């Protein structure tokens, strides 16, 4: 327990680790039944396999479309309205020639939107988080499946510990936030 945490508020959270996804999932069910407030899970891989609750793909599609249309429009404006020039006797509105760049710019917009969007919704960069104080937490990026729950007053904490200990956790640790 680091010096930092010592002069902090009372330990009002618990971090419980399990050595498998199944263990974690089981624990989550029990915690829910017992009506504990599950704050967050920290896992070495996705907890639910492939399901999409994320709105990012939609955002990326929108950005991509915007990029495509905007770029295509700009090119059309430039060649048809702003400064029409006779280029090798080709028509001013040479729309097929506008497609490639519009596509590339659209794709770029989508990629950027996805990247920034992802960081935003993931609340990154978040260099410090109270849970970092837990010694066991380092395993979360290796093979430890962790759940953090809210424990207001000590007796709730006690109940939580007893419940968790019954689930063969690899570790249970209190921390404060």
């Amino acid at each position, binding site marked *: 327990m680091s010096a930092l945490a010592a002069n902090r508020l009372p330990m009002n959270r618990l971090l419980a680790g399990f050595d498998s996804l199944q263990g974690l999932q089981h624990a989550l069910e029990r915690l829910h039944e017992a009506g504990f407030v599950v704050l967050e*899970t920290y896992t070495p*891989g996705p907890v639910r396999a492939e399901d999409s609750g994320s709105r990012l*793909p939609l955002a*990326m*599609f929108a950005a991509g479309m915007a990029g495509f249309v905007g770029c295509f429009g700009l090119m059309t404006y430039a060649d048809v309205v702003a400064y029409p020039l006779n280029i090798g006797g080709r028509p001013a509105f040479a729309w097929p020639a506008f497609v490639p760049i519009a596509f*590339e710019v659209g794709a770029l917009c989508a990629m950027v939107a*996805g990247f920034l969007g*992802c960081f935003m919704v*993931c609340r990154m960069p978040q260099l410090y988080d109270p849970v970092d104080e837990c010694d066991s937490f380092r395993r979360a990026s290796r093979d430890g499946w962790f759940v953090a729950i809210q424990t207001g007053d000590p007796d709730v904490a006690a109940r939580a510990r007893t419940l968790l200990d019954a689930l063969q956790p690899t570790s249970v640790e209190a921390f404060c936030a």
Partner: protein
Amino acid sequence: MNIPGMNIASPDATMSPRLRAPRFDDPVVDPRLTSASMTDRICSIALRSQSYPWWWLAFIPSMALAMLLVVSIAYLFYAGIGIWGINWPVMWGFAILSYVWWIAIASGGTIISALFFLTGAEWRTSLNRIAESMMLFGAAAAGIYPILHLGRPWFFYWLFFYPNTMTLWAQFRSPLLWDFWALVTYVFASILFWFLGLVPDFASVRDRATGIARQRIYGILACGFRGTGRQWLNLRAAYGVMAAIMAPVVVSIHSIVGLDFAGAATPGWHTTEFPPFFVFGALLSGFSIVLLLIIPLRRLLGIEDMVTGRHLDVLCKLLLTSSLCVSYAYLMDAFTTFYGGDRAERVMFIERALEYYRYVYWGTVLFNCVLPQVFWSRRLRLNQPVIVSICLCVVVGMWLERYEIVVTSLHRPNLPSAWGTYHATFWDWSTLLGTVGMFLSGILLAVRYLPIVSMHEMRTLIATTKARNGVSGAA
């Protein structure tokens, strides 16, 4: 631990792939691996306190070459592109052909990491990071050429279009402009795609790191990724869609590079088959470079149990396939030339195949079409020395192919009075070698300091294979 299916294989199949020669029936990942052991091993590579001797042996010459690139560029900007071998009929030379070559290499990486991600190929998981690094540094090497090759490089920004005081815009009909934008998109997209995939692994390294400096550095790179449910959900979603975008982008950039030539009326260029032809080329060079990278690395980094015989087998099959595609393209090239009945085209093709540059042409055919045929043999698909030598030939062959497309097409234009020849100068070569140095230095740095296998994807893979084996074992 009982591994089902092993009983049919020869006894030594139970040995770890790290201790024996690769086999076609190797699992994509050694069942002995666990998330923990895999993660620790990969992180330990990035966290080594001092580098391997072989690493220095490779890195110092690479860096020297990269320095040569700096010198070449400095002199180029000082003296002008007259220092290159380009001339009146052959206005494009090494700069463009090396650009195309590098782009193809980079694209190969993208195809493995993005396209096969979408197809859910399991063997792709452990190669993903290497392939993406290859994409990144290949794109970087390619990316400098379009600016270097300009007569007045300091005006390169005229290719962006924005309201300026001249009220001038770009010329959107030019394939070169398409190419410029495809390249800009490709380079930026590659970086984002590559980095997003790295974030969870940086987190793993951060948490294994000792010493405040490393912890902080990897901590910053990990941007505070902690594997929360929300992070996993969105990161996987974003990564998936990005992969879905990278796939068409990589196809588009290579088609557009093809259009740089097909869009011109020049004999030898003016053919509609170029866009797919160039994509085939990208596949071929991509697979060969990946093989060239993983074969030494799996040994040197001791990851034979993650990059197994199965990987070699698959990649060689793919290399053979793309070689067949390329061969088809060459055949069509010849066919359309003579079927089309344009005099200049015919003359140019005959000159290309039989005259001054004939060695380039036939070298291309030998390296890209003939040699890869050995991979019809399963035994040779696992013979690492053979694979390496074939892949080296293919890499050279792909470069020769671009030489043939760029130079030999240009040296025989419509008017016989304008015919000429092209000879590279020292500065052509120094620039090319310089980019090779830059590429290798980049790869080596990545190997040394980055998690060279995508750990979070490997963890999933290990889990799923375990699950599958458990099921089949019960059956």
